[in-house]
């Protein structure tokens, strides 16, 4: 760990100003501190935002929910409104990390956590995300946990969050505050970048821009589930995960919001897949066509080839579960 300056932010405005000149926000620190110990990240200054008033969960006028960026994963997962109306989010949160980590990790920090690609964490290895231009050791290395969608020749890292996958399916938006005092709302689609030739750039956030909240739209009448497939029953990142929100009417699918974790550099959502399902009667054949479409451009790198059949099987299983009663 390199020496760094430490500032405790007194206000969101002060935080963004301090961060704009080279500071890095710290909230729970569950990922950042590890990265600093390994010197994979070496911020010159830490802006501690933990004392800011960003830890409320409150209803919005249109029936949605505004989640302060500092709400912990544990608090959010156990919020009665979330459990009742957005259960996919609660389930996703509880599928992530461990109890101790969820007590510390925050909503904003969870969105911005870094990949768990093993080569990103090992400074003896080339990694375009950590050291742009050095190459990607993962492509021909141990890539069991890495991405099959949205990759580039420069990077095959995955985004490790479970929470963000559920939020993506829910159509959540991040509220941010910029250094100049303006705010904006970003869907998670807009927030995250694909690696392309700049895998070191992971989001559109500008220097100093602070996520202050995540806003969930009003709940919809639909069945929700979060299915996480992993190498051990707890404390393991998703090999593939599916956040599914599916509504049925008269034996036909009227809504199918599907987001995927463990497959791509960001929580993955494919509008064409959802379109294909919408208006159709559920069947194995339909679900397999959806998987065909989802995986049309998927590419494995040897050690993660199994993610393609695994994703298909998991998607079919999740869609079967979410449409089951209506099929009888």
């Amino acid at each position, binding site marked *: 760990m390199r020496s760094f300056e430490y500032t405790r932010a007194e206000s969101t405005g002060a935080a963004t100003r301090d961060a704009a000149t080279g500071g890095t926000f710290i909230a729970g620190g569950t990922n950042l501190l590890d990265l600093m110990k390994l010197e994979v990240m070496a911020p010159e200054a830490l802006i501690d935002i933990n004392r800011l008033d960003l830890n409320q969960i409150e209803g919005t006028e249109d029936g949605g929910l505004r989640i302060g960026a500092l709400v912990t994963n544990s608090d959010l997962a156990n919020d009665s409104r979330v459990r009742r109306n957005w259960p996919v989010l609660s389930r996703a949160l509880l599928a992530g990390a461990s109890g101790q980590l969820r007590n510390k990790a925050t909503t904003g920090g969870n969105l911005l956590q870094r990949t768990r690609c093993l080569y990103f964490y090992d400074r003896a290895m080339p990694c375009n995300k950590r050291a742009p231009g050095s190459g990607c050791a993962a492509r021909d290395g141990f890539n069991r946990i890495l991405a099959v969608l949205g990759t580039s020749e420069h990077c095959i890292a995955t985004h490790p969050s479970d929470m963000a996958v559920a939020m993506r399916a829910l159509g959540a938006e991040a509220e941010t505050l910029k250094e100049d005092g303006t705010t904006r709302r970003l869907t998670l689609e807009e927030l995250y970048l694909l690696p392309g030739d700049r895998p070191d750039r992971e989001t559109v956030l500008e220097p100093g821009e602070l996520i202050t909240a995540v806003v969930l739209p009003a709940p919809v009448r639909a069945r929700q589930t979060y299915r996480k497939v992993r190498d051990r029953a*707890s404390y393991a990142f998703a090999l593939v995960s599916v956040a599914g929100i599916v509504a049925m009417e008269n034996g036909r699918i009227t809504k199918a919001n599907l987001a995927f974790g463990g497959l791509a550099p960001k929580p993955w959502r494919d509008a064409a897949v959802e379109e294909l399902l919408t208006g159709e009667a559920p069947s194995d054949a339909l679900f397999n066509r959806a998987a065909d479409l989802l995986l049309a451009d998927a590419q494995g790198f040897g050690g993660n080839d199994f993610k393609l059949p695994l994703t298909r*099987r998991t998607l079919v299983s999740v869609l079967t579960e979410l449409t089951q009663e209506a099929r009888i």
Partner: protein
Amino acid sequence: MTEHFKMETPATERRLDDMAQGLVGAPLDRPEGPLKVTGTATYANEWQIEGMAHGVMVRAPGNSGRVILANRDDVAKLPGVLAVIQDDRLLRNPAQGTANEAPVQSPHHAAYLGQLIAVVVAETFEQARHAAQSLQVTLENAQMVQVDPATAAVEPQDGQALDQGDLDAAMRDAPHSVDLVYTTPSHSSAPMEPHASIASWQGGDLTLRGSYQMLKYNRNELADSLGIHPDRVRIISPYVGGGFGSKLGLAPEAVAAAIAAQELGRPVSVALQRPQVFEATMRRSETRQRVRLAADAEGRLTGLGHDARVSNLPGESFAEPVLQASHFLYAGANRRMSLELARLHRMCAGSVRAPGEAVGVTVLENAMDELAHEIGIDPVALRLRNIPEKDPESGKDYSSRRFREALESGAEAFGWADRPGVKERREGEWLIGYGMASAARVNVLMESQARVTLLPDGTARVETDMTDIGTGTYAILGQIAGDMLGLPRDRVEVVLGDTTLPPAAGSGGSWGASSSGTSVYLACEAIRRQLAQRLEVDEHDLTLKDGRATYANQVKSLSDILQGDEIAKLGHVKPGDTSTDVRQATFGAYFAEVAVHAASGETRIRRMHGSFAAGRILNAKTARSQCLGGMTFGIGIALTEELAFDPRDGHVANHNLAEYHIPVNADVPQLTVELLEERDDWANPMQAKGIGELGICGAAAAITNAIHNATGVRVRDYPATLDKVIAGM
């Protein structure tokens, strides 16, 4: 006064059965337990010593070439840095268990990626870590070296080869046979406490606070590494936060701390970073195992072949002893076995959690399951049918062996009779299967010494350099002494983990409890004789209980007998003819129920049972805990654990606890353990055998056999991760 004893003939007297205090065998708590769970037991790296500096070790970034510290002078000038040390005496890899001499010392040439080649010392840990990370290490004349066991040159281990009868003919003529290849990956010990040492010198005398399993060997290994006399070295290691083999031999941080402390003239602490524990201590070798089984129409084995390939660094003699239990577990007149060692540049291979049997019995038990399936008989019945009367190779008797009882009693306890057919039981999306496997592990007695002192106030102190690596040594040595001297457990103090105390066998190979326990027993027996002498009675007529002696219709307290004196005796046991006159081993059986998800291929273990026989059980609670731990590691071998080596340079890619998947609580269901009553007169005067590793020796096979029962899929490449399961579904 030393009580020497060599185990030459069976100890049929079974004196512990006659002691009045009733401690041995009782499920007593560990006396040090409260210290550990309250964080007040001081582990090696937790000592705060005046003037202590901190060292962090630096790894080689490649697997060959001459090591150059490119910016050494710049790093030396970083804030707080006291020294950048690349001393000739630094270790290439840890010593193998019981090596008793320095391992290869080579900080100037890289043999594997992750080798520790220097130590940077600074005033604070953070300064040292930053400086270590800032040191640019380059490798001059690096070459392409072999890192793949499949293509590496191999050395046959001739001493392990066996060719008895005609296995080829047996296979050809058998109505039923299997010829299978299984592979198991490398495993890490992954102890929770990283390897850590604090060295301080007083003149020419070194004191090392470390985390080690076998102090008498470690002291000699450290002295030899430094080129000093062992008398100048003291190692203190009262608490060890898990070893599992990785702390059997001296590890690089100890030598680094000692050299740095000497150079700087102040105490130096060096703890391995978590990735370094994974990359630079010991791995269990991966194995490739071919098993051939031939059976007659009734399922009686006529042939048994077991051929294995393992690997290690060039020059390292350790070869995972895969075949160890295959020699004696089952019958079969025609037998062939061989072991070959591939030479490659991965981290050093050594003892990890029951070396040999943990993976060898596992694969043998998979093959037995496949054979039972092939014949169409109950896997338990196949095993019962093949329990040999005598050792099938040497013709010797077994010292004690409640193998049949473990199979039968375990099957009964588990409800094996309800076993579904293959792919027969389904609950929703979960496929349910049962599986079983046998357990077997060699039993060993090692030389060990302990001093027991009966103090004038009627309390006792047990002293030995034996270690407690979380196993329960403090508990059981106190129980043995308490029983023999007639003292409640809280009137016996047990002092361990210091090389100034009598040298013990150390913790490893499942021999710690029986070896060090026997030394305590012997010392106590000598004390009893002296007490009897004072009372002028025969020692056998003396009943000791609750601090009082009862003899010839009289009762007298120990303090009255002692009259202000203390009695100190040294017990010293050595293995003798009973180690070779008979086959000594422990046995058992595992039963598991799994649920495999029909879509994802994820396996969840629903319940698991083990029945074990390991001679006299010294403490029913700590023995059970050992079995629970072993079965948990069995779950790891079966489902999750694999050191992932980068195919290009052989480095450990998943070098942390997040990506090296030890089973977590959610992976471990309700485990039940049955300990069968047994006395082994050939083992030692306590009739106890080792139980530390028995719980892992075959456990994984019960799970993978259950996966087959649930799904019809045989995963022959461990671990049975979901990708391999769905590939067969």
